[in-house]
């Protein structure tokens, strides 16, 4: 779903993944510095750091690739 004057669904997706990834990544870093009393199973793998980081990168790629500015550029090239 994309059109020149409208925001793309992929842009919203990027924002959503990026914000969530950032929050999870920061929480993971904080947890390394301040380990919780009640740890989840496999805590030592620090899943929130690498999974949060992955989501952040994916979100950035999507939101930049489908940003309103990029959409306008694509529209002007195709017209």
């Amino acid at each position, binding site marked *: *779903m*994309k*059109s020149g004057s*409208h*925001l793309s*669904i992929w842009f*919203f*997706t990027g*924002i*959503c*993944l990026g*914000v*969530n990834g950032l*929050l*999870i990544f*920061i*929480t*993971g870093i904080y*947890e390394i510095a301040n380990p*919780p009393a*009640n*740890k*989840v*199973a*496999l*805590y030592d*793998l620090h*899943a*929130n750091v690498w*999974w*949060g980081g992955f*989501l952040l990168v994916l979100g950035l790629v999507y939101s930049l690739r489908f940003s309103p500015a990029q959409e306008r550029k694509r529209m002007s090239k195709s017209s």
Partner: protein
Amino acid sequence: MNLALLLLSSSTLVHLSAVDLAIIVFYFALVLGIGLYLKGQANTGEDFFMAGREMTAWVAGLAFLSANLGSLELMGWAGNSYKYGILAAHWYWIGAIPSMLFLALVMMPFYYVCKTHSVPGYLKLRFGKGAQAISSISFAFMTVLMSGINMYAMAVVMRVVLGWDLNFSILVSSLTVAAYVALGGLRSAIFNEVLQFFLIWAGALLIPILGLIEAGGWTGLQAKILQNLTEQHVANPGSYTHLWSTLGSFGSNPMGINWAGIVFGLGAVIAMGYWTTDFLVVQRVLSAKDLRSAELAPIIGAAFKMCVPFIVILPGLLGLALLRDPQGHLLRLVPADQAWSAAGQAQGLHGYDEVLPLMLARYCGPGLLGLGITALIAGFMSGMAGNVSAFTTVWTYDIYATLINPKVTDDFKVKMGRWVTVIGVIISIGTAYLVMQAQSIMDYVQALFSFFIAPLFGTVILGMLWKRASPAGGWTGLLAGTLSSVGMYTWVKIDPNAVRYVALSMDAQDQAQNMFRALWSCLICMIVTIVVSYMTKPKPDSELKDVVYGLTPIPKTEHVSWFHSPIFWAVVVAAIFVILQIIFW
């Protein structure tokens, strides 16, 4: 003690932190923001009900799959995989892939060429108002029930994981869905479904990854399940991790079904009925911008559908192998009615359908827990929104504009669509309370499918492929199929011994009974349609143009390379499907 307080006090693993709450609140804000943003793009009937028919194959394909990723997929099937083992994966593979490919390559051209707004709308073109009325009324009934099921499942998640009151959860989810669907119509539902697709994968994928690491891979998981079930004296413990090899007889697997029930009842009838005639999912594909996109969308959906067992079935199996209570003893989940009884609550029992949240709580700390909960909420809300938007379309086009007021204007349809969205949500709330009485969410859903969907497939497929099928044959066949299904269900409820006739074995569990009931009702529908058609006058060929095979000129899609051809990708998906069956045989 209050139920919520009891759960909260016993759930030491799940306490939401500020960051978890921030993630959940951000999701609700984004969903409502999208609804508000899209309000201005839903001004005509075509915009509101069909999203302007401008979706790309990817958007339509992901929405097609995501509309089905409600509670049914997430909690219900994780619970069923805990209960029945890997047999539950049949509902994702043989119970989805062949029918999705059939929809793409065989049926979609007819739906697309006749430009119908709905599946009941197709029946009107093919068989007249009789078949349309039966189909639209039964479909409207089913969608609000399904929406209520999603609402209930979401409330259960909130209760189990967060200790929230069921009524509060139902209120929050229903208000949000009503707001964003009423504002933006199908376009808003599709936007949110695509968003939810990504959230579901982002939030749920960690469970199988971490679970397999803990279990020692697939081999370690199989060994642990065998050991745990043997210790608990469960019958056929080895059958929980085999897909086909235990289907030789009814008594050799936990579902009490044989290969014929899976292949014919599930693969040939229920799956074909659901994926090709359930308007909830077909509506997403009808919103595609051209025929090639409409054909590619179900194929894209099928490719991702094959992967969904990784985030749904595997967590259920991991629960069998790894779940422990706080004292370190093996945790055994029980049927929902047992878990929810006063005695069950006092013992801290959990139902089958709670396996996914329990696994989430096992692995996910702050942040990840919020994302996982958001993924579950997203799944339930997409299920609710999908059903409500389909209900709105069928009510407005197939019931009101056809049976009550054929002269209705386009403006009025949009206004009615917004109001009916709200009314549909209110009816769904009532349904949510009704579902609380059912033993298992999925068994209830499958019973509904077999009532309505299985006979509908018989009617639609005969209508598309056999021009001799007459209008009288169409509606009488559909009515006979639906009534026979309800009749068989009632018969078994009154006399449990009737299972030996309906499902061919007293070993048949609920799911197996649903499969066979669907098979018989579809056959009855087709036989009645054929007999009545030969006894009555068919429509002339001139009235069947664009709706029947042989009389419909299929528009040629633009010339594309083999790499972009729907047939090529359908073959790739089919090949992977076969390989998966062999690997998990």
